């Protein structure tokens, strides 16, 4: 639908490149065909993981990893495709028969449920259950995940979710198969929004507090059979799920087994050795130190790589002196040595150098480099010239906020080195990982600059540029416009684009807005980080999914040989 229009230009070519890297095994060597080969029915896929899932409750969890996992146990009205590259980010119907019918100029959206849908309990999934699930998003304790339902759907200002405030009148269910949403204002891409986790059905009356975090109620092909928080999670088949109602999920294995809390180094060692059930295992991206070890042909055949769809950048606080001066910001953009920054996170195998704000996976993104330097190693002379023009040839101090993570510290030190010749003394301010976003999102507490990243909630400029650069969104707490850029030109352009009804035109316009913003240099785009996955030798049907931060699409992965 609206999504297809996005699959042009850069996205398509980037996706092709992805497939080329990702499909290492495709036809490379006869029988043992690698992770891309066909998966058979049966067996259990092992997942080795460091961190446990944030939440099992679909209204609470909201990140690439958990969104990918939710598709195994939950279904939403629509969902993303199940394929590598651009096909994967295309929105397709899931519980609903289509991707929605708009009326009232795009302010009212109607969805019809398919036949033969059941919860794991055997109860049928009705429109009332979908409505119950969506309205949970307004509950102050439960609705902490995807914000889009709350932002777009019209609701009384005092509404606090079904447990506290009861029925939400702006979502109606004329019959058990039909659900109608009334929006605050027209939104052309609402078909993508109902693919968000918050549009998961929850049996009416259930799911208060942290009930679903302990025991999810499955609507997808698997259900939770055992859950030890922080240690293990076991999924088995949900026999109430009917394959005929689901065109997206292959669901080949009989089950999944997660092991959490493993040391990243341990995971890499086990994946490299690949003994026993580790042959049926998948895991997250390997560490920089392991890159050199997976260069043998046997191991290379088991690797997959692609970008994770996020941009790592350094925000410059435009309200602080001298960063209110555009020349200073431009000079920093010119001077940063992006090669050393990339080496700090693991070199070319684990990141591409970023030049624009939006990463290549975003629709309408334009590839350009406003502040070029030879080999991206930084152009100190050009930077010095700009600083001299601005009257800062004597240098100045810069306090850089970073998360207490070795990778972040390494990046910060690389930036510190790159700015040293300009007499800019970088003071690295390490903030613990738990409070980091709280501190830098509080305008009174953030310092001159901060390193952070942004991932689009779906690969469109709409979920990338407005949250980061709309000056009207600056809030004293929970602020995501780290540069505190409040430029009338940019603000006006954002309003203008949001009023476009053609999604393709909007995405192209966001590509141009990217350039307009970078001319003001409020941020230094640093890297598009990559995932580099090593999977077990018996893994089949695996590809990296663009919509889930480059993770292996769980609804398609399986085993090559289930009897092993």
């Amino acid at each position, binding site marked *: 639908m609206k999504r297809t229009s996005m699959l042009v230009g850069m996205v398509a070519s980037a996706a092709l490149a992805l497939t080329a890297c990702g499909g290492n095994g495709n036809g490379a060597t006869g029988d043992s065909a690698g992770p891309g080969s066909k998966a058979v029915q049966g067996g259990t896929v092992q997942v080795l993981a460091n961190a446990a899932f944030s939440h099992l409750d679909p209204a609470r969890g909201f990140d690439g990893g958990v969104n990918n996992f939710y598709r195994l146990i939950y279904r939403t009205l629509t969902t993303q495709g199940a394929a590598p590259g651009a096909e994967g980010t295309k929105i397709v119907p899931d519980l609903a028969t289509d991707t929605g019918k708009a009326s009232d100029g795009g302010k009212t959206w109607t969805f019809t449920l398919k036949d033969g849908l059941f919860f794991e309990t055997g109860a049928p999934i009705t429109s009332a259950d979908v409505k119950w699930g969506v309205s949970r998003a307004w509950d102050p304790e439960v609705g902490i995940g995807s914000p889009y339902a709350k932002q777009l759907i019209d609701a009384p200002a005092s509404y606090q979710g079904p447990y506290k405030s009861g029925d939400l009148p702006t979502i109606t269910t004329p019959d058990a198969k039909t659900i109608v949403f009334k929006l605050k204002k027209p939104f052309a891409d609402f078909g993508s929004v109902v693919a968000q986790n918050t549009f998961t059905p929850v049996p009416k009356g259930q799911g208060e507090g942290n009930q679903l975090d302990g025991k999810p109620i499955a609507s997808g092909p698997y259900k939770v059979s055992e859950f030890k928080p922080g240690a293990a999670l076991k999924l088995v088949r949900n026999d109430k799920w009917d394959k005929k109602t689901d065109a997206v999920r292959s669901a080949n294995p009989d089950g999944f087994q997660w092991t959490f809390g493993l040391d990243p180094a341990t995971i890499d060692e086990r994946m490299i050795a690949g003994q026993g059930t580790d042959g049926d295992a998948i895991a997250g991206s390997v560490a*920089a130190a392991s890159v050199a070890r997976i260069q043998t042909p046997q191991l290379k055949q088991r690797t997959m790589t692609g970008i994770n769809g996020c941009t790592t950048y350094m925000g410059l606080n435009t309200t602080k002196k001298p960063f209110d001066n555009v020349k200073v910001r431009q000079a920093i953009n010119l001077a940063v040595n992006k090669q050393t920054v990339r080496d700090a996170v693991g070199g070319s195998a684990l990141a591409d150098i970023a030049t624009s704000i939006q990463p290549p996976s975003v629709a309408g993104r334009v590839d350009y480099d406003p502040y070029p330097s030879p080999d991206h190693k930084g152009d100190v002379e050009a930077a010095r010239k700009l600083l001299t023009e601005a009257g800062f040839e004597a240098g100045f101090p810069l306090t850089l906020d970073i998360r207490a993570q070795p990778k972040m510290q390494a990046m910060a030190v690389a930036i510190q080195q790159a700015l040293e010749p300009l007499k800019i003394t970088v003071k690295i301010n390490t903030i613990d990982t738990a409070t980091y976003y709280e501190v830098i999102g509080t305008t009174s507490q953030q310092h001159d600059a901060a390193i952070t990243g942004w991932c689009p909630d779906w690969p469109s400029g709409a979920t990338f540029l407005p949250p980061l650069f709309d000056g009207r969104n600056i809030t004293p707490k929970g602020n995501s416009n780290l540069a505190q850029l409040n430029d009338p030109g940019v603000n006006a352009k954002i309003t203008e684009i949001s009023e476009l009804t053609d999604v393709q035109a909007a995405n192209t316009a966001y590509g141009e807005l990217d350039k307009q913003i970078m001319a003001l240099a409020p941020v230094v785009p640093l890297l598009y980080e990559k995932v580099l996955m090593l999977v077990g030798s018996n893994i089949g049907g695996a590809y990296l999914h663009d919509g889930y931060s480059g993770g292996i699409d769980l609804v398609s992965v399986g085993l090559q040989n289930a009897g092993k």
Partner: protein
Amino acid sequence: MTTTPTLLEVEEVGTPVAAGGSPASARRILRIVTRDKGALACVLFLAIVVLMAVAAPLITKLSGWGPYAFDSAAIDSSLGGVPRGALGGISGEHWFGVEPQNGRDLFARIVYGARVSITISLSATVLTGVLGVVLGMLAGFYRGWVDQVISRVMDFLMAFPALIFMIAILSSLPAGNRPVLLVVVISAFGWPYLARVIRGQTMTLAGREFVEAARASGAKDLQVVFREILPNLRGSIVVMTTLAIPGYIGTEAGLSFLGVGVSPPTASWGQMISSSVSWYSVDPMFFAIPGAFLFLTVLSLTVLGDKIRTAIDQGEAAS
């Protein structure tokens, strides 16, 4: 754990040293140490480390690379940033090789790291020494409520899981001046071990004739404490503090190893070992070099401390 050396001080020194050494002890210790080949080797190694620390800027000028300068040419970006060349990139250019992912010179970082280790451990030793001796003497001399208060504080501090608490505090405190924070935190949990011994010995000494005599001749409390008792504690203090230095070097390295020590880009041996952990199978030299320096320094200090203790013990037995 880093508790091992602390235990060593308490348990081994607590019993044997009763009263201070004779005035000639310094010369005797020197004689014993210079005659012992092992001890001499330790002194030599420590001298080199101290020299490195003191002359760090000069030495790195000679070697050509500073501790913070990146050398992208020395690492292979396409292989995750592993150093080019054998043995972690050891070459005429980089004497000890380079750090993976950024190519910083390991020799320069070892030399500068010695500064951090020595400054922090010496400062912590001085601070614990002063706190431990003063509070221990007060408790032992005055007894009564003073002793009660000080002893309860010591019980409390020693019941604390010091390592966990040190890390927790250091990780949540704002960056600030890291070395100073490290010294303060290490000393805060270190002084009771010295104070306990000093307190016991002060109690014994306070009952001796010469103290009684000093009192009878009208000396004030403070005079008695500092003129009569303190000199007699000299032996214990020397032994305990020499044995404490390697403990503190280990603690500083341990805290840096756990990521709450000095802040980047400052080099410290513990920090270097910490960043080498994930690389040890690909680039073992990155781990081996700082590991060897740390081990040899601690070993040298421990051996030396042990020799000094034996020398003082023998001195007492002789006198």
